[in-house]
């Protein structure tokens, strides 16, 4: 049972990363990211109020202590965030480069009259 749950946890973690990587930047995707963030924050609040709850959930999932579970959740959240950020930055960079190229080409075409 515990092994089964561990496998489920790993699959969920990997699919989160895959979603960030492959997912298109639709309105829905952005909305889901916000919802996920809110759920994470809510879970933190609940975990602070009921410290034993994280332990219970962790035992249920077979990942040991509640602190461990938090660490794993945070790790996945961080990796997802980092990849998401990296892709965004690349996209922004690409836009800036296109703009800069347009300027460079306009300038050169005026100069050489072509």
């Amino acid at each position: 049972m515990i092994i089964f749950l561990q496998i489920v946890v790993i699959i969920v973690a990997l699919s989160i990363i895959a979603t960030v990587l492959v997912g298109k930047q639709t309105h829905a995707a952005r909305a889901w990211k916000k919802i996920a963030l809110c759920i994470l924050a809510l879970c933190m609040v609940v975990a602070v109020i009921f410290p034993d709850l994280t332990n219970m959930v962790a035992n249920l999932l077979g990942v040991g202590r509640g602190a461990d579970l938090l660490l794993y959740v945070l790790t996945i959240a961080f990796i997802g965030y980092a990849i998401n950020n990296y892709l965004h930055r690349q996209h922004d960079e690409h836009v800036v480069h296109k703009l800069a190229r347009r300027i460079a080409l306009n300038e050169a075409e005026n100069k050489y009259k072509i």
Partner: protein
Amino acid sequence: MKKTINSETAIVIPVYNEDKVIGGVIKSVMKEFKYVICVNDGSSDQSSVEISKTGAYLVEHPINMGQGAALQTGIEFARKLPVKYFVTFDADGQHRLEDVRLMLRTIAKENRDIVLGSRFLGDTIGMTKSKRRILKLATTFSNVTSGLKLTDTHNGLRVFNRRFAESLQLKVSDMAHASEILEVIAVGKYDYTEVPVTIEYTDYSKAKGQSIINAINIGFDTLLRRISR
């Protein structure tokens, strides 16, 4: 025959902080080619001034954007010129004009879309063992990700026709553009071949060349591009 090909060819040279050598490189290229396009990629040295002294076209990036971006800009400028063939050429003087001649003869005679230079079919003067090993590894990696069969996937010397130039839309701005060009060849099913070329690794080009560890960045970006979007 040779003369007509050369006058229908654009040489695109991305330039980033090469003021010590760029003047000489352009001069030697311009002895044979009419259309030489230098893209100054936001150099902080006197590259721009040195290029202006020659008769080459100078396109100035307002900011530094990387070699891939500079190539794309140069190719887009060259498309407006009355040329049939496009050559990508390094600014640091490690490429030889006789190799360009051979590649141009090949593309015209065999009617290819793109001809790529290969160091491993030709000679490498002064290449370090570690660089050779990394390049072999990069070649294996790129052949796997692109599905092409090449002996040297990261050579800056390429000759291609207008059809290929018109379709080229490089998104990768940095050194990973070499892999991206291969993907364009694979996806568009362009007719390609390799020609042996000699690269001269001088102390200057070695000092300027990309460090081996950058292969990690290139590999990461290439894989990320494959799986994302």
